[in-house]
């Protein structure tokens, strides 16, 4: 299953946030969306997953979600969105409870995603006992539990410190390498984009339009810190964005 965005536009009251967005999200690839702050990246993600209705255009789901998929379009949020009153395993169980899976099947899924995210030892912990990085791994485990067709990640690493960010990027890469998933990854961090993206969509400042789509062919698991090819790509992205980012910044001050 893959997604197609057809001529999406979106307004809040009189303000146009997104315009003329045409984009294909191919199966098994990670599409990163970058752009200056306030350009509508996160709005775009909410439109893709059906949390908001676009003012114009449509998001198309092509083909059927894979067998055993409980929630085709699944989010990972910047603020983790874990229920603080539920333990790690109960937070994952939350998204399975509405599906009448039977306790054995549910238990198997929980054990599987916890081991894939290396959280098996923390099953009974409450979110308040976990660091930011661990919380986000729980959120990723929860997203994997519903076996999504497309993962929608909304700045998933932005609330974390830079070391944790590197570690989690490694985790995401190894998860993808073991079992490629389709993802839309919104970020303002170009380093994350060149590290994780097969395609990088650069949005202009508000109203957000697609400025350029950069594709990076280096396989994910061979991308490393200090890779010159990636550095060049990152530099290129930054040149694309710099003026836009500055203009967006000044716009906010003026507004």
């Amino acid at each position, binding site marked *: 299953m893959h997604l197609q965005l057809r001529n999406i536009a979106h307004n809040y009251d009189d303000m146009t946030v997104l315009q003329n967005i045409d984009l294909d999200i191919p199966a098994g690839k990670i599409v990163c969306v970058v752009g200056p702050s306030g350009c509508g990246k996160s709005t775009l993600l909410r439109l893709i*997953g059906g*949390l908001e209705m676009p003012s114009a255009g449509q998001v198309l789901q092509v083909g059927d979600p894979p067998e055993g998929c409980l*929630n085709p*379009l*699944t*989010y990972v*949020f910047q*603020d983790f*969105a874990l*229920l*603080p*009153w*539920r333990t790690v395993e109960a937070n994952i169980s*939350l*998204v399975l*409870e*509405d599906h009448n899976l039977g306790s054995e099947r549910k238990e198997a899924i929980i054990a599987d995603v916890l081991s894939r995210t290396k959280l098996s030892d923390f099953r009974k912990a*409450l*979110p*308040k006992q976990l660091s930011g990085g661990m919380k986000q791994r729980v959120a990723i485990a929860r997203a994997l539990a*519903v076996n999504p067709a497309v993962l929608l990640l909304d700045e998933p690493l932005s609330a974390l410190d830079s070391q944790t960010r590197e570690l989690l990027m490694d985790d995401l890469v190894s998860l993808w390498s073991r079992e490629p998933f389709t993802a839309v990854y919104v970020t303002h961090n170009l380093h994350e984009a060149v590290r994780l993206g097969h395609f990088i969509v650069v949005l202009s400042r508000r109203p957000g339009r697609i400025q350029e789509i950069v594709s990076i062919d280096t396989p994910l698991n061979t991308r490393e810190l200090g890779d010159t090819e990636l550095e060049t790509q990152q530099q290129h992205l930054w040149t694309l964005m710099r003026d836009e980012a500055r203009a967006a910044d000044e716009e906010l001050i003026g507004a």
Partner: protein
Amino acid sequence: MREETADSSARTVPFRGGGFSPKARRWIGGAVFIVLIAGIELATRSGLITSLTLPRPSDVFSTFVALWESGLLWKHLLPSLSRLAVGAAMGALAGIGVGILIGLFTLVRAGLVPLVAAIFPIPKIALLPLFVIWFGIDEASKYALIAFGTFTPTVVATYGAVDNVDRSLIRMGQSFSLSWFSIVRKIVLPGAMPGILSGLRVSLAIAIILLVAAEMLGAEYGIGAYILEAGSLYDLERLFVGVAILSILGVLVSTLIGILERRLLNWRV
């Protein structure tokens, strides 16, 4: 650099942090009671306060012991406790239910918030005769009065608490296609629980106040009836026994909610 620290102009940076974080110190609360009561005892014994102004705490205590020994204590306490339990439970449950509806639905909110605001300031005691006409002079009118008095503060606390539930958690629930009912039961209700419980502290105290009011009419036994009888006879010792029982009841209810909070809200940071 070392010489500079030895300079006579060097001073320790003054500490400006701290405070603003009260801690639980249970014995201090008890100590305040003891000091206050001991002070009154001394003052009444020395004649600083006449027995017409305040009864001697030791006399109040012996009146209490006499009440206990006569077996009348339970005869008064049990009906009161059951009125309190039934009335407060009805009012609190209805209040939580309506509060959640107000918190979730635009129409209910628009329709009921002004109504609740209109009902809230009515002294419920004034309505006792009305309740007696509606529900009879027996238990039902007492339940109704207590329930009605508990209802409004619970509604207000509950819908405020629902408003404060983290919207990003609800958005998360929707993004995983949880059913509406699941979102309410598993996200909204537990998320609103801290606010609901602190609201219950207030509404249960109001329930105790109304208990006395409810027993003003048509109650032979009950703490309220006991207090009113003592009051009309200007029997200050017995009056204070009754008042002390109500205070202890208040402390017990508040402790109970404290335990509930520790149990249910252990997830709070």
